[in-house]
């Protein structure tokens, strides 16, 4: 029996060595292990063996059977692994560097900057307001303390309509009166401070060139409450601008004259490019003039229904104006302002960020 097993093992190993695919392996398995297989034949031969040798022979066959089964399993795994290896090897290595063409639209750069600012202001508790482009002479000038005969009201600077003292708003301050009137009652009744920003399109009649456009965006903000001070204004501007630029900014205030604030300031930030040493982007001054701001003029608060003649300083507040178009130019390195309104998709389609 031993000899038979040795012989059978040799045959099995020879055949197993030649097997190269799972189908052949299964055939081989059946030829050895099925009910009609060669091991079954061996079992049949057991009956011819003397009884005292049966037990040992039976054990030998069983051991051999287990061995064959194990060899099959091993071979099966081996084949599967080889097949997997082959599959992997035959798979193409893909080229991520091939240019991708995906249908991707673009936002106007003003939208991108505006959203960023609106998110910041919203996080600081500001309401975000919207205002019309055509406004009355009263809203644009009178209500923000710009007197009759002020140069800003001249026809050569402002786009007046042919009807009813209307005009294309020349600054977002034109919305101040409406904002004060809208939120004033809540301030007085429940002490809810007025905090609002109002982005908008403005129009000034000037020759269009690389750094001037007759159509541009501003964002104006106001805060009104009891006891708002210059100190608060500086603190707020510094905090807000640090958010806008994503890092701590150094601000400085200079006197600036705007009829709707008193005192009024020009706010500079230390140049983010050179840190104040002076470079081309700050005209070597180390400072960038960024936004006008100031304490809201008592006349403006009065006309906005906030204060009365009895106490023109009952509530105080500050206002500031950000040039959205200018910020977008700074942020994206746009050197020619005409990009914004010319609708050239070659230029605008670059603004794809969300």
């Amino acid at each position, binding site marked *: 029996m031993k000899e038979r097993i040795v012989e059978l093992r040799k045959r099995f190993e020879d055949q197993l060595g030649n097997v190269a695919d799972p189908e052949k392996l299964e055939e081989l398995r059946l030829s050895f292990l099925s009910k009609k297989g060669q091991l079954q034949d061996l079992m049949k031969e057991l009956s011819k063996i003397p009884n005292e040798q049966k037990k040992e022979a039976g054990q030998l066959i069983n051991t051999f059977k287990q061995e064959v089964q194990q060899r099959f399993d091993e071979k099966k795994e081996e084949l599967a692994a080889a097949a997997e290896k082959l599959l992997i090897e035959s798979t193409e290595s893909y080229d991520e560097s091939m240019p991708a063409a995906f249908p991707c*639209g673009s936002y106007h750069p003003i939208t991108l900057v505006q959203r960023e600012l609106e998110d910041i202001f919203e996080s600081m508790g500001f309401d975000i307001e919207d205002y019309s482009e055509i406004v009355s002479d009263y809203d644009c000038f009178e209500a923000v303390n710009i007197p009759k005969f002020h140069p800003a009201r001249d026809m050569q600077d402002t786009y007046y309509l042919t009807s009813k003292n209307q005009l*294309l708003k020349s600054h977002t301050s034109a919305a101040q009166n409406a904002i004060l009137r809208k939120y004033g009652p809540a301030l007085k009744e429940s*002490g809810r401070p007025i905090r609002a920003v109002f982005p908008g399109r403005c*129009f000034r009649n000037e020759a269009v060139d690389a750094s001037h456009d007759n159509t541009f965006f501003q964002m104006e903000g106001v805060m009104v409450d009891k006891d708002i001070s210059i100190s*608060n204004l*500086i603190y707020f501007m510094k905090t807000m601008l640090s958010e806008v630029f994503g890092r701590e900014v150094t601000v400085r205030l200079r006197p600036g*004259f705007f009829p709707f604030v008193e005192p009024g300031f020009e706010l500079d930030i230390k140049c983010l490019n050179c840190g104040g040493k002076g470079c081309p982007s700050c005209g070597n001054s180390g400072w960038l003039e960024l936004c006008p701001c100031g304490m809201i003029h008592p006349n403006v608060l009065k006309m906005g229904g906030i204060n009365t003649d009895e106490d023109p300083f009952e509530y105080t507040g500050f206002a500031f104006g950000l040039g959205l178009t200018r910020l977008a130019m700074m942020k994206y390195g746009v050197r020619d302002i005409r990009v914004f309104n010319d*609708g050239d*998709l070659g230029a605008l389609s670059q603004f794809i960020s969300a």
Partner: protein
Amino acid sequence: MLVSMNWIRDFVNLDGQDIEELISRFTLGVAEVEGIEHKGENIHGVVVGEIISCEPHPDSDHLHVLKVDAGKEVYDVVCGAPNARSGIKTAFALPGARVGEIEIRQAKLRGVISNGMCCSEKELGISDDHSGIMELPADFVNGTDLKTIYPIDDIVFEVDNKSLTNRPDLWGHYGMAREFAALTGRELAPLPVKECDYEGTDEVSIEIRNPELCYRYTSVRVENVKKKESLPEMKIRLYYCGTRAINLLADLTNYLMLELGQPMHAFDGKKISNIIVDTPKEEFRFRTLDSQEREITKDTLMIFNGEEPVAIAGIMGGLDSEITEETDSLLLESANFDGVSIRKSASRLGLRTDASARYEKTLDPEMTMQAVKRFLKLLSEADPGARCTSRITDSYVKKYPELTVSFDKAFVDRYTGIDITSERIHDTLTALGFETKRDGDSFVCKVPSFRATKDISMKADIVEEITRIYGYDNFKITTTHSPLLPAKTTMKRSYDNAVKDLLVKTYGMHEVHTRVWQNADDLRDLGIVPEDNVKLLGFSDDVGILRNTMMQTLLPVVNKNKNYQPDFGVFEIGRVVHGLKEDETADERRMLGIVLYSKQVTEKQLYLKAVEAVDAIVSLLKHSTPSYRKTAPVHTWQHPKNTAEILIAGSVIGRINTLHPSNLVRIAKNAFAVCVEIDMDALLDAKAGVLSFEAPSRFPGIDYDLSLVIPEGMRFEDIQECWMGKEIADLRKVSVIDIYDAGLVKSVTVRFAFGSDERSLTGEEVQGHIDAIIDRLKARRVELKA
């Protein structure tokens, strides 16, 4: 405006101060400094030299060989100046000296050794005279450094004029000096003046006929002016401050203007007998001293000599009464005119002068008298022989009211948010010229006349005076203590954002901005005539008509980009004007405009893609599906057949259309464009569907698909009536799962999903419903596809 620190130092002692640092404090406390120049910085080693001999150069027809006595030594110098001659004293740059960019070294000029250089005024940077070398007075000592004689060294800084708009007092050095005094805590010296020494009774005849436009006119007559040229110190100052020296009298008026900010005019005394200030009765032409003829309108304030016009008030004098080389007597004008009137006249004439720029700022009328006396003082220094031949005559017809402001420290504390001591408040205001009475922490201060014309009138103004000198850099900054209450995003904003996100991210469109007015040229390229609408005042119809649809500006954008890509979409949320409302104000609307453009797909495909985008917008914002209603075109460029209104719950929110072939062909052959315009406020106001939840049934449903052949000319919405609104039991949802469209032959596969919450439906039940639908379809001649 250019400011000379030497000039400032006439009035305030700045010894020991770091001037550069002081100028940067000036920027932070007063007005923006745009640049600083160190005059004389690169002039060294220039001395008084006497030409003791002057021989022609052996090898040149214009050069001379000079011997120059420079005190310690005599130098051989080759010089080309036409006025070089023996006996004169000149500015001589010694060997080793520096003159601007030039370093003086020994040099050979056409074979002759030259040591040093004789200099012109231009080379020394003190005037633009380059006609010859400087000629110095004979009593100057040879070898003396010129800088010890003339104020060549100076620091001159330029202030941004815009930042002086509201500070009429800062348009002269004296006002600037006051600021430096306040910034440094030093005294401001009084302005040296000279009283009129005329003892007779003659006055200048002055008649102000228009007191609204001329507040004050102060004048004096002076005769026996013999000197023609100003002192060198004065000429250098004028030059450093951007003004060329002309002659003594003109220079004096300019100097006064730069010093005090008071424009003055010197008439030839022989040509003026009586001054009348008035607006003319008729328009006429007038020749100003720059020899230009100018149109004078009836609202231009003029100075007349009797009937004859002699100057445009506050802007420019006339040619005929100008000071000339022969003038030895003058009539001096020191007047105050209405700022607005001067600004308007100057702008109407296109003639903005240094004088008019100052008057525009609303000057202090109190200044005119002081200016006359200062003029007399300076004149007497330059020409001691000059005599007044009239009394100073003053016609002061309109005064500003005196202003006082009362406040206390508590107010300053509250408005500033910091603690500034009462001493400091008092000292600052006093230094700035405010007569301030302090009682403990209470103040009453009188606004000085030079700040009272429009600048300062109330407490908040006073706070600024205190804080700007205190310095904003010195502020302790603190946050507000206001309660925090949540802000609400306005619906308008979230609608705008949702629409933009959808169009950019899902539909790959590009957001653009266009102008709010129609551009006739752009429209003409498309074969479109600008439409009548609300107009801008003072513009032509080519650029001055506001758009009444976004397409007037979006279609040109598409046209300009037609070669950008074969397929793209643009959109803008902007404003249009739909004519005037009943109260004659403009009817402004917020609109979304979309144009899809393609050279690759059919017009129908493009149109249906636009419809899909509209459906997506409405679905996203309103949880409903819009309906469409064909309509006649509103604009010429809309296609007569494919123009439709977009409706939500019966109200129109916008329009969709293809382009009229005559306009389309202007863009490109084989290209198509589809326009969508939606009123964003109508969209906002439209009725929204309810977003309600229906739990999916636990029982399996039955889907039944029908493929329908659509008869020619029939719309899908007509077919929908076979099941919509028919209350079919257990019909859960109807959806279109396939569209076959080959132009004339069109079919649609519709899936009817049936289901029940209580049980599984049987095929028979469903078949009954389907049969009923098929019957209705057949009644409409809709066949089932085989």
